[in-house]
């Protein structure tokens, strides 16, 4: 019948993103890709609209959004839904901070995200990872997937690109990493996911939150390591030929 009702119930909605959150002793590192792809209206296909999930509407989006000074959220799913949920939670947390007289805890921020996700589960498509630091429990990561479940985890992955990271993280994540090890892991994981997931790509953004504050980092595509079957970037074929590196193929004749 209509697309909304004949979805394969066993396959969860995939979301055009890779988001990661890793906690270390002293804080958290949040990471994400920067690709936002389009989704045409499900009910009508108009030739003037780009095909669903095919056009990169923004190749440098910032999916790591601030909620308070010490708490950020990684957004995956519908760009609109996650923006609006973040906006509401930022507003609530602002009031909460005033009333509390001190910075809000990460747990409160995560539970507000959960509240909106759960109460509007029928309408929202939002997979969120909340990460931050507070003086009571240090660095914490909370996963709030589709449906509004809340789960505290030492690390979390989300978005369509995360499918490629379950095995990788099972092997590579270790207890008791340092800040630098944690950030390296986040960047490596995001890079691997972006190599295989068409809906993820662009640059890797990371946000590190700890007692000393917040640091934003930016890793453009040309700084990522090369993975299997990827080639070193060149300015032009002409450079390849002139450097004489690649064997110049003989012209074919029958």
């Amino acid at each position, binding site marked *: 019948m*209509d697309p*909304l009702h004949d979805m394969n*119930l*066993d*396959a*969860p909605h995939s979301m055009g993103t890779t988001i990661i959150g890793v906690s270390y002793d002293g804080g958290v590192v949040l990471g994400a890709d920067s690709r936002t792809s389009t989704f045409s209206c499900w009910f009508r296909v108009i030739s003037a609209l780009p095909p669903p999930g095919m056009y990169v509407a923004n190749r440098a989006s910032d999916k790591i959004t601030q909620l308070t000074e010490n708490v950020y959220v990684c957004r995956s799913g519908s760009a609109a839904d996650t923006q609006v949920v973040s906006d509401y939670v930022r507003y609530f947390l602002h009031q909460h901070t005033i009333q509390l007289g001190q910075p809000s805890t990460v747990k409160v921020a995560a539970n507000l995200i*959960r509240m909106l*996700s*759960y109460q509007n*589960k*029928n*309408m929202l498509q939002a997979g969120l990872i909340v990460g931050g630091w507070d003086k009571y429990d240090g660095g914490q990561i909370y*996963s709030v*997937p*589709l*449906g*509004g*479940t*809340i*789960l505290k*985890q030492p690390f979390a992955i989300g978005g369509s690109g995360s*499918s490629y990271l*379950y095995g990788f993280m099972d092997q590579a994540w270790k207890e008791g990493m340092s800040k630098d090890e944690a950030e390296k892991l986040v960047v490596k994981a995001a890079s691997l996911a972006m190599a295989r997931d068409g809906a993820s790509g662009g640059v890797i953004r990371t946000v590190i939150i700890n007692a000393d504050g917040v640091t934003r980092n930016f890793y453009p595509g040309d700084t990522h390591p090369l993975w299997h079957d990827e080639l070193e970037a060149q300015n032009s074929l002409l450079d390849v030929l002139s450097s004489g590196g690649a064997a110049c193929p003989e012209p074919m004749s029958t």
Partner: protein
Amino acid sequence: MAHDEDVAGSERTLYPYVTGTSVIGIKYKDGILMAADTGGSYGSTLRYKSVERMKVIGKHSLLGASGEISDFQEILRYLDELILYDNMWDDGNSLGPKEIHNYLNRVMYNRRNKFNPLWNSLVLGGVKNGNKYLGVVTMLGAHYEDNHVATGFGNHLAVPILRSEWKEGMSFEEAVKLLEKCLLVLLYRDRSSINKFQIAKITEEGATIYPAYSLKTFWGFSAFQNPGQFAEGTW
């Protein structure tokens, strides 16, 4: 065509996202023993591996849930409030498992009538004043009590084992062994189960949720070695 979300005010949940699989519960000499794995599946992906699906409720009850985890978390919030108000009476009385079971039944059935179910199957067990209680409430609002219960796949795989081997007045050790026998079968045959379990106990003294642990599995049947030996292409 009009969709349910478009009709003013009406809403329905269509499907669960993060789900837990079977919960098993049995009565034994001192009270109730309950078991569940710690998995949270996301469709066919075994996404979360440390989800506690059994929780202590008040002084006398244990609640285990399968199905949508976010709905289970919401039910825990409802029960928090229920227990809080019960305590605030400060009259020495406290809600027992029978009352909690009844409350949950009302909640689940009323949601079902509004076509907006809490997508869970719940196992409620407890002991009060020496009386053991073990019951189930499903997302449709169906409810029942028995000496041994299970949800989901457990209904098909564990209940037959329990019907055959459960007996009145089992010791803690016997009961744990019986639960583990069921858990192992579920591990072998339920695709959404994981090898990380928790067992919870409730007696007159109180409740204990034991730390998560894994079970050894057996693969040493000779028939497993070369199944295609006499039938090429078999699986």
